[in-house]
């Protein structure tokens, strides 16, 4: 049963079971992660996830300001999710709207589970997430890149947080919705986990899932998270490998 009125006639899965961008139900969009892309920031990362392009910078741990935000026993994580005015079809008015404030909050909370915040009392760790181009799934793309940027900044964590989303289109549970699927689909479940401990640290959902569909969606995302977690690691390794070869280049000169 599709309850989207006039929009239900839009077919998102074809006769061969493929989606409008040719993916299978359990297939992710292409993901590419790059580490250390900014000079001034203490840590940074860039992610392309389908049509999403997201840049993340980490500053800190540094003295938390204003002072009353300081916590005497641990660091506070201060993530700021921001969409560029030109990142969406119709220009978005610059500055934080209510959606961005909520997303910033849930991303901060998710990262706080992973970071050993008790090692840096009275400080803040600021995570700036800039969505340069949006194509559905920006919060989890940002969160995935933010974890990498935190490692790049040398901040101790129990593991990197991995974001992933599953949803429902044409009545079927599928992995990683693109923009059209998100607009005309029936449900979306952005989620983030810590692979090492199997903890769920971010979870939001809207739409309509039966109990069984919800289970399928969580399973799809968890499987994908293992794959994305490897991409995060590879991206970090790639940075240090390239530094290594630069050094060797200098030596041979």
């Amino acid at each position, binding site marked *: 049963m599709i*309850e989207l*009125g*006039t929009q239900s006639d839009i077919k998102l899965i074809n006769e061969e079971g493929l989606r409008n961008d040719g993916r299978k139900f359990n297939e992710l969009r292409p993901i590419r992660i790059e580490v250390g892309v900014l000079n001034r920031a203490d840590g940074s990362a860039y992610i392309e996830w389908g049509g999403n392009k997201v840049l993340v910078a980490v500053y800190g741990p540094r003295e938390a300001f204003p002072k*009353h935000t300081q916590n*005497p*026993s641990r660091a506070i*994580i201060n993530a700021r999710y921001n969409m560029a005015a030109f990142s969406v079809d119709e220009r978005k008015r610059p500055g934080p709207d*209510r*959606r961005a*404030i*909520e997303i*910033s*909050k*849930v991303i*901060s*909370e*998710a990262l*706080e*589970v992973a970071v050993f915040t008790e090692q840096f009392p009275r400080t803040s760790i600021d995570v700036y997430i800039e969505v340069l181009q949006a194509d559905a799934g920006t919060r989890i793309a940002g969160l995935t890149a933010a974890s990498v940027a935190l490692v790049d900044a040398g901040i101790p964590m129990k593991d990197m947080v991995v974001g992933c989303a599953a949803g429902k289109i044409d009545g079927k549970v599928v992995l990683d919705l693109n923009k059209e699927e998100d607009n005309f689909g029936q449900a979306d*479940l952005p989620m983030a986990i*810590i692979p090492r*401990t*199997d*903890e*769920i*640290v*971010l*979870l*939001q*959902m*809207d*739409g*309509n*899932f*039966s*109990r069984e569909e*919800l*289970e399928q969606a*969580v399973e799809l995302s*968890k499987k994908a998270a293992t794959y994305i977690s490897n991409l995060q690691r590879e991206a970090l390794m790639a940075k240090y490998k390239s530094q290594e070869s630069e050094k060797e280049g200098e030596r041979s000169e």
Partner: protein
Amino acid sequence: MSAVSKSADEIVYGLRREYLEKISAEGNRIDGRKFDETRQAVVNINFVPRAEGSAEVRLGDTRVLVGVKVEQGEPFQDTPNSGILTTNAEMLPMASPTFESGPPSEDAIELARVVDRGIRESKMIALDKLVIKEAEKVWVVFIDMHILDYDGNLIDACSLGAVAALLNAKVPASKIGAEDYPLPINHVPITITFAKIGSIMVADPNLEEEEVASARLSVATNENGDVVAMQKGLSGSITQQELFSAVDTSIKLGKDIRKRVLGR
């Protein structure tokens, strides 16, 4: 605040947290409820007759007042055939010594958005039936939630209040020369929130429980037992088992509240 008083607060907080985790591990809650038991919910509809719909909700000692106003407005350009729903929460300074006046806090924004999501995503209101003239004039439904007394779990109290107020709201069509009619309703979503204390998930946390919780999970379900919205909050984590047991409890408690409190 001086460093000394803050650390004293921290010590008290630590003790309280330890105590609540201890008793929950032993199977108890501070107010004697079972883990999956909500506080008594009392809904007083039409508290503000001036509004098109209203409900005062007491959930234990938490008290909120929800008013619904229905007014004419322009539709959004991308949805010319749909009425508009907007939700706002006012965490009034009268409700708690920790609430401050001023622009809405992060917490107030999250609260409003989570309540909104449950109503919007369940398709509770038939927004397509709120069109006066396509692409020109539609009915706009404003849900304003006032927090009067804060003893925990504002999400469930506000969700229940908003749903109750909407169920009894009228579209003031007499203002445009027609007859008033009840707001068109498709579904009745119920939101149940859990707090994780130690390794136990308790339904409908009171303030003491909420303050020591590591994680929070809200699940909105409809009368078919489908999940229509969820939100995890606070800087802790939940396991997959905890998620699904919370979903099951929400479906069960939702059915009960829908029938017992809302008569649906």
